[in-house]
């Protein structure tokens, strides 16, 4: 989401860091650029003005102008203020209430409420071991209830049976009743999309709230929303009292202004981010890490967490043992490729590494992408078992041709893969000579080998 903003800030601050001393005018010029960058990113105007004023005041103060590295100092101030703007602590869905805990989902049409409801249900079910019931109160959009039912089936989460003609408040009551009788921990209530100025519909959602007393009321907002985002949030908050915000379509290329201004204007925390079409594409929101990502400082913490979540520990241990013995073969290589894909592919990983925003653009130009990983997997799957065990010895020209045909690639691709594999093996041998056994073993606990792109990026 924040790529474009990261790029802009990167350019602005690169110039700043090169400077020795900074005058007040220098800071002023920089802040004008920061202002435009934020406005182009759709950050709400009052938030931008406030932000720029605060950063400028601190930046022209003694702490910067007399510092030896004034540029760095300004970047730090921007970072601090970004964190302040986003809310200092990460907050998650609060379920500390009497079961069944009602959670109400509200938002404009097309913001992604139904999909988000299913995503949250799946997350609560899998990660927190909760029994979750979903109910759609959307009696307006054609087939909306049907949509939630299908998503429920995909997520393995039960939905309240649809009763034709029933009105939202009745459905909500029935959902809570079912929740109580059947012993559910959480009841997710998905509502119809509505405009914040549609009085009749806002009254309806207020009635639902009064009937169910939700413990959490989450506003679902599209990350691409413009200046209107805060207006909508304010109005919904006035009417139904929000407890948090879920940003959707964060995987688009929107610059994330709505996300940046939400907290500042409404005081409500962003709790979750929707990051893809798949039903498990939901992430927690960490203000500090996002600020780091915007300023190109990366987000290594998230990367390690993601690795821990997606990597099969047993498989990682096995690979490591093989690495140490020096009989790492192409099957293991393929395993690593799969792990990288599970972690969100190259793009997903790169996003979280510090200082790679520029490199990412170059990679995109050079077509180094997840397609390449897939291709390599295909090549390996087109080999026989014996070939995978000892590729460098037995793969002659004719076998390489066969593999290329089988995997729909060119012989050159096969050669490239083999060369990469050879380089890896050489590197392993060298490590062994240097007696890094202990070092690798130690790494196993923290950083499984799947984290490191095999043999570098080429």
């Amino acid at each position, binding site marked *: 989401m924040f790529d474009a903003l990261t790029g802009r800030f990167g350019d602005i601050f690169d110039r700043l860091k090169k400077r020795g001393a900074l005058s007040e005018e220098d800071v002023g010029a920089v802040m004008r650029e920061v202002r435009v960058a934020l406005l182009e990113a759709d950050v709400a105007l009052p938030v931008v003005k406030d932000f720029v004023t605060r950063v400028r005041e601190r930046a022209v103060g003694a702490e910067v102008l007399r510092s030896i590295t004034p540029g760095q100092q300004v970047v730090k101030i921007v970072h601090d203020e970004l964190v302040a703007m986003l809310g200092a602590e990460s907050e998650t869905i609060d379920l500390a209430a009497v079961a069944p805990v009602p959670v109400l989902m509200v938002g404009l049409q097309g913001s992604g409420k139904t999909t988000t409801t299913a995503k949250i249900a799946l997350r609560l079910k899998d990660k927190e071991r909760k029994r979750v019931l979903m109910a759609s109160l959307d009696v307006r959009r054609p087939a909306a209830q049907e*949509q939630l039912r299908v998503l429920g089936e995909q997520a393995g989460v039960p939905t309240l049976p649809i009763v034709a003609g029933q009105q939202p408040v009745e459905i909500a009551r029935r959902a809570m009743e079912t929740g109580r009788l059947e012993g559910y921990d959480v009841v997710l209530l998905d509502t119809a999309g509505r405009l914040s100025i549609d009085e009749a519909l806002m009254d309806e959602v207020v009635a639902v709230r009064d009937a169910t007393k939700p413990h959490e009321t989450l506003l679902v907002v599209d990350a691409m929303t413009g200046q209107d985002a805060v207006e909508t949030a304010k109005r919904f908050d006035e009417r139904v009292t929000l407890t948090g915000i879920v940003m959707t379509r964060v995987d688009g290329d929107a610059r994330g202004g709505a996300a940046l201004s939400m907290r500042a204007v409404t005081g409500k925390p962003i709790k979750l981010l929707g990051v893809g079409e798949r039903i498990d594409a939901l992430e927690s929101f960490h203000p500090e890490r996002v600020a780091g990502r915007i300023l190109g400082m990366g987000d290594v913490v998230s990367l390690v967490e993601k690795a821990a979540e997606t990597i099969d520990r047993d498989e990682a241990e096995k690979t490591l043992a093989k690495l140490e013995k020096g009989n790492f073969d192409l099957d293991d290589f393929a395993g690593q490729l799969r792990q990288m894909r599970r972690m969100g592919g190259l793009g997903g990983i790169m996003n979280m590494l510090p200082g790679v925003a520029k490199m990412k653009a170059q990679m995109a130009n050079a077509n180094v992408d997840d397609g390449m990983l897939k291709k390599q997997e295909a090549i390996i799957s087109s080999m026989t078992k014996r070939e995978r065990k000892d590729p460098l010895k037995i793969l002659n020209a004719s076998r390489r041709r066969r593999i290329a045909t089988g995997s729909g690639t060119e012989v050159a691709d096969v050669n490239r893969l083999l060369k990469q594999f050879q380089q890896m093996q050489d590197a392993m041998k060298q490590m062994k000579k240097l007696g890094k056994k202990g070092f690798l073993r130690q790494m196993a606990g923290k950083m499984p080998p799947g984290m490191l792109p095999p043999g570098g990026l080429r």
Partner: protein
Amino acid sequence: MKSWFRFGRGKDEKDEVAVVEAPAAEEPRGGFLSKLRQGLARSTDKLSDGLADIFVRRQLDEATLDELEELLIAADLGPATASKLRQQFDQRRFGEVTLTQVKETLAEDVAAILRTVEKPLAIDPSVKPYVVLVVGVNGTGKTTTIGKLTAELTRAGKRVMLAAGDTFRAAAVEQLRIWGQRSNVPVVTGPEGGDAAALAFQALEQAKRDGVDVLLIDTAGRLHNKANLMAELQKIVRVLKKLDANAPHATVLTLDATTGQNALAQVETFRAMTDVTGLVVTKLDGTAKGGVLVALADKFGLPVHGIGVGEGIDDLQPFDAREFARSLTGAI
């Protein structure tokens, strides 16, 4: 009253084009102008109130112009277009101005930008079936727009067929089928998760067999930065061309009025990938100002066919540059 689409062969033959009157618009339902004004005025209270604030008190000095620029930004016109409008304003060298003058002038400037894109969807009656592909980001209102367009075309006496090309989202096919029932038109469907291009191909085949006038193809919502989803869209176009080299005859991009500057990226990518021929801006009945439309017109000059102002079947209205500009700036 004009319709937001018309039948004709394009702008060169404008004179011969018969503008189709949409029967619904003639009904005394408050008329679209009042409805639009209602929606837009509600949504632009802030901008016009803001204008009142600045100009009642002061002369047209730098600080006032700064505020004017900021108000335009707050209406989603974006920093670039806002700064351009400000400069135009500055060059006029007003002395003392009244608020009305300011609003009128601003509305004129905005309308001048928008007028270039005020073009109804031209449906060529000699092409049968006339294929319209509807594309856009998730949740922008593709299916709803198709539902409304179907109603209007049917009333104009056209035989319409729908193709449920959103095979991805749960119950999307069902949603389109219900819209089809409302206007009593056939809907071509395939299995959920099936190939959208194959479905589009089948639909066109059937539309040809059945001799329908207009085929509207729904597609799954997709983020414009997802390369393979965009490639899937190109495949739909490629496959349609096998049956009719000119299909799709129109590709309409739906755009959510609440979208901010990202709309520029959306239009740019969709246009590059699928040769979008026009826009429909939806959800203009909310608090969003749709100001990004001005930035879009300024940058791309892509025709704007219609605007969505509600969830009802008749809530699709033609785009009127002057009206839109006047409501946006509060000059009404």
